[in-house]
């Protein structure tokens, strides 16, 4: 145990023992009680370890399959996505590689298709659960903003795409797959009631809505869901930034047409 008078970092996630010759190097690292380099490294999948980090308990088979599916679904939003476009904008200008991910995080954090939308959508789930009546009420009368916040107010029901026309095929495919991988009550209910909810919202379900339901089935808090959604979408940003870096700014849209300054 550290000396009582020394300032310490309190954590339920991580424990270390020191190397015999160096108190600044860990000999053993334990995550939620599991030896990371002596046990998890050999025996756990990456997805299971990710779950363990957030929940401090290993996932069961269904939870593991659900997070695995969600991670694949979110790994690359594609080069038309705002966050990936931000990363590619770093790539074409020859910016540093970390800046591409910082840009993707900055843009992918928001209320439209971003992590903050997932945060709010999980809050909606916590409030409404599987009550159509509650969903209808909350969508009709969204929570009033309290005092001013750094986040802009939501402009659409969280989890739905205000610019969508009908529910996109990949969203439906993801929902169908994730609802199938185990007894996932919220995803199954969402699958069964999607169209009704879309009618309430006036727009189709989005990836953020499916992700939020999955996070609720995984018992993630809104804050945990927001964080993991940010993390899970970074691989696509990384590879598209690298690809565009090679191609350069000359082969990337600059939108010379259709850009006119308002008088």
């Amino acid at each position, binding site marked *: 145990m550290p000396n009582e008078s020394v300032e310490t970092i309190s954590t339920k996630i991580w424990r270390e023992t020191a190397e015999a010759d160096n108190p600044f190097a860990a000999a053993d690292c334990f995550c939620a009680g599991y030896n990371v380099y002596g046990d998890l490294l050999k025996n756990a999948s990456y997805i299971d370890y990710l779950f363990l980090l957030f929940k401090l308990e290993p996932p069961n088979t269904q939870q593991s399959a659900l997070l695995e599916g969600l991670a694949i679904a979110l790994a690359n939003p594609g080069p*038309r996505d*705002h966050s990936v476009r*931000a990363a590619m904008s770093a790539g074409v200008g020859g910016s540093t590689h970390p800046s591409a991910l910082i840009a993707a995080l900055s843009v992918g954090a928001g209320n*439209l298709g971003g992590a903050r939308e997932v945060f709010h959508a999980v809050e909606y789930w916590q409030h409404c659960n599987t009550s159509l009546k509650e969903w209808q009420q909350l969508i009709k009368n969204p929570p009033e903003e309290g005092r001013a916040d750094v986040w802009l107010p939501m*402009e659409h029901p969280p989890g739905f795409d205000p*610019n969508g026309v009908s529910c996109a095929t990949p969203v439906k495919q993801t929902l169908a797959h994730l609802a199938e991988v185990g007894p996932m009550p919220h995803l199954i209910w969402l699958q069964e009631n999607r169209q009704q909810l879309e009618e309430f919202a006036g727009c189709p379900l989005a990836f953020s809505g499916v992700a939020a339901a999955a996070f609720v089935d995984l018992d993630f808090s809104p804050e945990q869901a927001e964080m993991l959604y940010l993390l899970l979408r970074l691989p696509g940003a990384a590879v598209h930034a690298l690809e565009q870096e090679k191609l350069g700014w000359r082969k990337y849209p600059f939108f010379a047409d259709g850009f006119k300054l308002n008088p």
Partner: protein
Amino acid sequence: MPVHSKLEKFEDNWHPSVGCWVPNEKVILRGKDVFTELNDKPWMEYLLYAATGKESPKIARLIEAMWVICTSFPDPRIWNNRISALAGTARSTGVLAAAGSLAVTEATVYGLKPIKGATDFFYRAEASLSEGKSLEQIVKQELKQFRSVYGYGRPIADADERVKPMMKFAHSIDCGKGKYVKLAFDIGEYLSNTRLKHQINIAAVCAALLADEGLSPMDFYHMATLAFTAGAMPCFIDASQQQEGGFFPLRTSRLRYTCDEQVRHWRV
């Protein structure tokens, strides 16, 4: 237990040399009391002092003009500003937008790499000149080694419209007549007549102006860190006040797939 770590001496032991906050009492920056000795300084002079230790209203004014004239274009298509516009359209926060834009500003074709690189180049070029090398030899060596010269050539446009107004301002405060500025324009003249036809851009001009004032590449780099914020911020504000998702939406046909379109099947 024997301790071999080089870190032991720093444990709970840090001696900053630039400053500190004394709670409920004072703030010290580079040996001066912020509330009584630095409180009247314009912000740019304060930043200059914080970053470089220099106290010079003239250099601060010169840098401030660079921020206004050279680095704050509020065009959301410029790649670093585009981060802020995308953040606005995706309804992120203003600070995340600015942070993303600033991070991306360490770019190769604009921003911090040319800014630091041009200053470094001029110091090396001046040293080589004083060793007797010709300007042509210096530039050719740079091109041979790095395939470009920081501060010359420009994406999208050929000439740089910022050069004239920046030099005009510099002259108005009695800057812009030093040896590095002369060197910068001499190199520009030379490069514009090569097959590259690269013209001097604003990074070279600013680097030379500040080299003549005695700033090092790192000094200029630090002083340029926040220089692009006034361009990025309005791009965020503008996009966040228009329809969400409305900033240059791309339909799927805007992707030009450049590989074989044959569908493959994952192993089952």
